[in-house]
């Protein structure tokens, strides 16, 4: 049985795409076939983590939404770009980086129902074990749809007042949409913080399971999205925590 996992954060800059790419990689390392869809159409970016340049993107989610191809034709295998010895497979459906394409989405919108059918088709055509959806920050119709059809939702937040309030909104929406499993991840936590205390406080605030508290990491910052952290630093404590989150998602 394949799983759909949405990764969301109410505000931008939380490390949402980075976490999505790392979790996808760790799930593939265990031999799974993992699909990743970048639904952040107005500000795409996850393709960078998988080593794709703008010119490498031959077809995008936009082309599918505009009826120019089926969704699997917009999926690109990125496994070898992440690392040679990965047991499973990683497929990415990127969003277009062309300014004209982004403008067209904003101007015309699209039938969001296409996303639902596209996810189904992608899972069937690529025989995916896991489909990960990198969502647009905040709430819009695409995000609500993605959350509604997900088996699990990962909400990323930083220990920041703006994130605290926004996260409450997403948790509430997930509850109303009866998402089977919602996990919180607190990211970029200053090293001076007591992670156990942060975990307890966040869980108490949202009455929602915290899958991990990830400390700020200089190595992650230095990597600056030029690769997948968990693959480059397999024994880093942050990687260990990410692995733990990945395992929880598969429970």
């Amino acid at each position: 049985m394949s799983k759909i996992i949405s990764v969301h954060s109410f505000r931008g800059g939380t490390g949402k795409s980075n976490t999505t790419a790392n979790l996808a990689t760790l799930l593939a390392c265990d031999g799974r076939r993992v699909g990743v869809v970048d639904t952040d159409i107005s500000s795409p970016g996850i393709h960078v983590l998988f080593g794709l340049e703008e010119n490498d993107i031959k077809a995008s989610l936009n082309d599918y939404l505009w009826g120019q191809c089926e969704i699997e034709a917009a999926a690109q295998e990125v496994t070898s770009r992440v690392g040679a010895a990965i047991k499973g497979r990683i497929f990415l459906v990127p969003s277009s980086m062309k300014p004209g394409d982004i403008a067209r989405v904003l101007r015309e919108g699209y039938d969001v129902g296409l996303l639902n059918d596209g996810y189904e088709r992608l899972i069937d055509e690529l025989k995916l074990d896991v489909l990960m959806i990198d969502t647009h920050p905040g709430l819009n119709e695409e995000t609500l749809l993605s959350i509604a059809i997900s088996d699990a939702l990962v909400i990323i937040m930083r220990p920041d007042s703006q994130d605290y309030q926004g996260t409450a909104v997403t948790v509430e929406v997930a509850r109303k949409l009866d998402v089977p499993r919602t996990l919180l991840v607190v990211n970029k936590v200053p090293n001076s913080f007591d992670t156990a205390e942060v975990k307890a406080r966040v869980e108490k605030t949202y009455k929602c399971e915290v899958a991990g508290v990830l400390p700020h990491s200089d190595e992650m910052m230095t990597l600056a999205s030029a690769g997948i952290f968990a693959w480059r630093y397999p024994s880093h404590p942050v990687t260990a925590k990410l692995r733990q989150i990945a395992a929880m998602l598969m429970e």
Partner: protein
Amino acid sequence: MVENGKGRLLVVGGNQPYLKSLSHHLEEAGYRAAQMEESPWTPERFKSEPPDMLLLDLRTPDLNPARFVAQVRADEGLRDTPIVLLAAADDLTGVEQCLALGAEDYLLAPFSPTLLKSQVHDYLEIARQRHEARDRAKRDELLKIEHDLQVARLIQAGFLPTELPQPAGWEIAARFQPAREVAGDFYDAFTLSQNRRIGFVIADVVDKGVPAALFMALVRSLTRAFARQNYSLSWADVLEENRPQRGGASHKGRGHAVPSTGTNALKNAVQLTNSYITDNHGEMNMFATLFFGMLDPSNGQLAYINAGHNPPFIIRPDGMVKAALKGTGPAVGMFPAADFRIEYAQIDPGEVLYAYTDGVTEVRDAARGFFTEKRLLTILNRPADSAAALLDHIEGALQQFMTGAVQFDDITMIAVRRMRAS
């Protein structure tokens, strides 16, 4: 009416010898002159057979000339009838009063028969011209209405699609036969979601003629425009108490009542049209039954909303009815907060969906008997090799049935047929 230049005159006044003498002179000149010699002095008495001209004697005892003139002028049928006053030489006040109220002219005693005849001749001519002008205006008005209706008919024809989409492996045909110049029915078909879906509509405004045609234009335009609005307002409900239900339109156990391709368009088209009409035109008390189908031509899956319309049929290749797609909500424009449910059906190869307005089953024969759904089903049960052929069969049967009778209601049909795999 004035005949051969000589008209019918009515002399209103007492039993005075000089009036008799005037009448005599007029009859000698070829006019017909009747006399009204006693009270009640009211135009009611000659209204049913109006004279061509009135001669009113101001010296008549018990007669209030001003009131009489006013009454004549207030009457729709008499207001153009010329009135000439017969007055005493010193009664200029009475004459002025009556002229102000609409009398045409006057003669002062003693009355000259020559002057009288001259006035009668002139005013009868004026009356004749007035009548002609009025008839011409009436005729022009009718011509204008007829012309307007023809223009309306053309404009309405422009509200129907000039071409129906014909996706590979499918055939779509339609018929439209208004009972009058303009109709309250319409059909429509167009592609949506970048050609991945075909939306088709059949609707019947519950009224006839021009009001129904105007309403039809509104409903058709709104459904088409709202079907192209990608974003669905219903998602906002998630954040309120009436959240969407899990379950429902489930694909392989996953997915919930969340949009799939084309369902937002379907929901928006019907729900938003209903809201618009009830919000803005609620006082018109008009509504339309409407069936909106959203077809996936790649697999024959049909999502639909049936807003109070008579159920379309899905007919199997052997002519048996596989399904009747019953109502999933009330007629559009009826209830402000109506809910329109999306249902699903499947059209397999060789099957045809047939949708119609009740003008079909309610066609009457010369004995005023209805065509009935039973007769319709008999024709549908005869397999046809194309959508157009099926509609031709039905149209032929309807024409035959109504021979010698008048068509009462608009007849509209649409057939969507999935070809057999070759």
